[in-house]
């Protein structure tokens, strides 16, 4: 196993793992989401450091399995997946590019976190419909199809859409 691992660089592993999509939102990958934090090689062991998004997120297990499968494809089997809680994952780690991918997919991307927090205990935020661009939108529920998303509806084009909640 030794000789296989030393032929791969950290960048190459990152590139490889960028092929792993979020199980719920296939247009973005785990690098886009800022879930993958580090890759370490030490003594024949490849350690993958990830930070979980929501504490109860069921997709994290799937992502962990996908990481193992991907690495096994290139011959790396001695893997340890390390979960690191600090610094805490935040939607601020989602790249601008990834936010555009979300919008194109029909999911309103998260606002910048400081804006959202003020709004959390105060008045409703103004969210643009990812389908028609109108700001005439209203929240149906703080909790949508998954723990990370809220459910909104557009009052102009009448379509419902998910909002990736700011965390």
């Amino acid at each position: 196993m030794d000789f296989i691992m030393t032929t791969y660089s950290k960048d190459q592993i990152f590139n490889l793992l960028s092929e792993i999509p979020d199980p719920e939102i296939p247009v973005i990958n785990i690098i886009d989401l800022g879930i993958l934090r580090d890759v370490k090689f030490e003594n024949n062991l490849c350690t993958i450091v990830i930070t979980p998004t929501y504490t109860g997120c069921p997709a994290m297990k799937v992502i962990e399995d996908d990481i193992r499968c991907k690495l096994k494809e290139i011959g790396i089997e001695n893997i340890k997946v390390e979960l690191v809680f600090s610094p805490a994952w935040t939607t601020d780690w989602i790249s601008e590019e990834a936010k555009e991918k979300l919008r194109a997919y029909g999911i309103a991307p998260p606002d910048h976190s400081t804006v959202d927090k003020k709004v959390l205990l105060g008045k409703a935020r103004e969210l643009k419909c990812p389908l028609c661009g109108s700001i005439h939108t209203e929240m149906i529920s703080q909790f949508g199809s998954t723990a990370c998303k809220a459910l909104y509806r557009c009052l102009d084009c009448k379509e419902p859409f998910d909002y990736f909640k700011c965390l």
Partner: protein
Amino acid sequence: MNIQEAKFEYLLRLGDSSLIIGHRLSEWCGHGPILEEDIALINIALDFVGNATSILAYAGQTEGNGRDEDALAYLRSEREFRNLLITEQPNGDYANTIARQFLFDTYMFFLYEELKNSKDETLAAIAVKSHKEITYHLRHTTEWMYRLGDGTAESHERLQNGLNDLWMFTPEMFDMDEVDALLIKEGIVPDLNKVKASWEKRVKEVIAEATLKLPETTFKQKGSREGKHSEHLGFLLAEMQYVHRSFPDSKW
């Protein structure tokens, strides 16, 4: 009692409360009053169970006897659980659930705000993570307090009954014993009197805004710290632990 033992005990208290209330909320799955609320409650339940997983995993590591989060969740019986009594109270009707969640969510919000400053890095990290989620729970529950309290005569009455029935379980949330004393000295956990002051203020504000009355019960129901639970916990655990205990070594 040494620091490690105190920490283990404290982590059980935190983890068990999240686990039990998470389980209670999951009982609403498929039975919510409307689809959006069904989804909301089970998402919140998921957050709580996720929090319990992190905390109980850390508790197991702290104990150092090889018990992981599953062993702690599924193989202990009622007398060994340390969840607050309020968390095991049955769901009842929707208003009752909202009352219970509101009282507990407000507590969690202020408690975890303090735990973010814990000198124990792992606990602080989990707290930072969970506090963000708790903030969403609290917003949700508070909105329903207003909607039901300041709603129809029926919703108002049901919510008032819920608050009245659950009030006696709230003083226990702020009790401290030698476990707390030891850990407060080390800067690992907060003084709950501080949490209590914030909790009382917020609860009073929301109850007033929701046109409800502050319950007048002075009776204090306690005992969870010693494993003395209401009769409800036994039935809850029987359901929750059944599959694991039936197929102890299963993996999927």
